[in-house]
């Protein structure tokens, strides 16, 4: 089963500017006359972050805090949470504003691990509703009655050689960025909320953002799942041990 055609297409100089690829993953050319443009392709299933087998659907209410020899670590679950609110909370923890010995000129904050970044929610008209984009008729209706909901309006600008490069900024919509690397969205949000000084990079070094449900840090607890009430197990009428005991 081949994974993506993009890798096997010969890399020659692209002379035709109108033939732009949809993404680096596949060699699918954008058709300017198609009904839908710039549809984000979902992740291939083999690349989707996997959740542990025995996890049940959950929502954590609090951050899990763990004290280490290196300091405090807070593990936040981003599932279904707003980007801005989560980022504000995380930036407060990173700066150390929740501590009595806060100093604005030192890095005294805690480390933050954000998990499930791929399931984060962007409130408003920021991007197309993924659940609706799969349904053709619902998206049509949405386009007719509320067209502003169907545009991904949020743009990220990444500068390379700000002044000298004539190409200018690399502009990406939030939808496309989510497709390429979902944890960038949260880390950019936190970066914008941290104070714009020389300590910002040091704060960001302590932020770890993972798109999946598990984080690779040793010794740190994973996001805890509240156990659902299981139906009562009816004990078997016959047990091997009881029979052995009876025979004895």
């Amino acid at each position, binding site marked *: 089963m081949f994974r993506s055609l993009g890798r096997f297409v010969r890399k020659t100089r692209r002379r035709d500017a109108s033939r732009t690829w949809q993404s680096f993953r596949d060699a699918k050319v954008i058709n300017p006359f198609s009904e839908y443009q710039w549809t984000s392709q979902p992740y291939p299933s083999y690349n989707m972050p996997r959740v542990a087998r025995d996890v049940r659907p959950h929502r954590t209410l609090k951050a899990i805090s763990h004290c280490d020899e290196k300091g405090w670590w807070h593990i936040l679950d981003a599932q279904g949470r707003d980007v801005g609110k989560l980022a504000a909370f995380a930036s407060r923890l990173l700066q150390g*504003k*929740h*501590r*009595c*010995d*806060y*100093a*604005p000129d030192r890095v005294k904050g805690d480390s933050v691990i954000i998990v499930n970044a791929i399931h984060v929610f962007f409130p408003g008209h920021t991007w197309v509703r993924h659940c609706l984009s799969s349904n053709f008729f619902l998206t049509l209706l949405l386009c007719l009655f509320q067209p502003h909901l169907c545009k991904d309006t949020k743009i990220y600008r990444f500068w390379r050689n700000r002044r000298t490069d004539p190409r200018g900024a690399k502009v990406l919509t939030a939808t496309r960025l989510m497709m390429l690397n979902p944890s960038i969205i949260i880390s950019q949000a936190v970066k914008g909320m941290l104070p714009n000084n020389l300590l910002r990079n040091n704060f960001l070094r302590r932020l770890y953002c993972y798109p999946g449900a598990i984080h690779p840090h040793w010794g740190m607890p994973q996001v805890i799942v509240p156990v659902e009430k299981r139906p009562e197990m009816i004990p078997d009428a016959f047990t091997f041990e009881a029979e052995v005991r009876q025979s004895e």
Partner: protein
Amino acid sequence: MYGRSKRCFKLAAVRVMKELNHMYWLRKKRRKQMRILWITRINAASREHGFLYSRLISGLTRANMAVDRKSLCILAETEPASFKCVVDEAKRMMKRETLESARNLSRF
């Protein structure tokens, strides 16, 4: 001071004048910055007790406790037990208000 301002007299003279000007208003700004720092620390400490800085201060004014922010900050860092007592006093004043505030028109 960097570059030629370090070495050349004419340029250094300009920077020195600026520096003296800065020293004048930074002395005043220092007192403001210290107060901001105290307020941030008191805010963090009171949030540990489930109380906000704004409510703490209003509670203290109502309880007629004229503890300044500098002392509150030092208390929060070195004597957490005394700080908790202060927070409890403020909470008591604020709690009384929330119980009566629903139909109380005396403030208007």
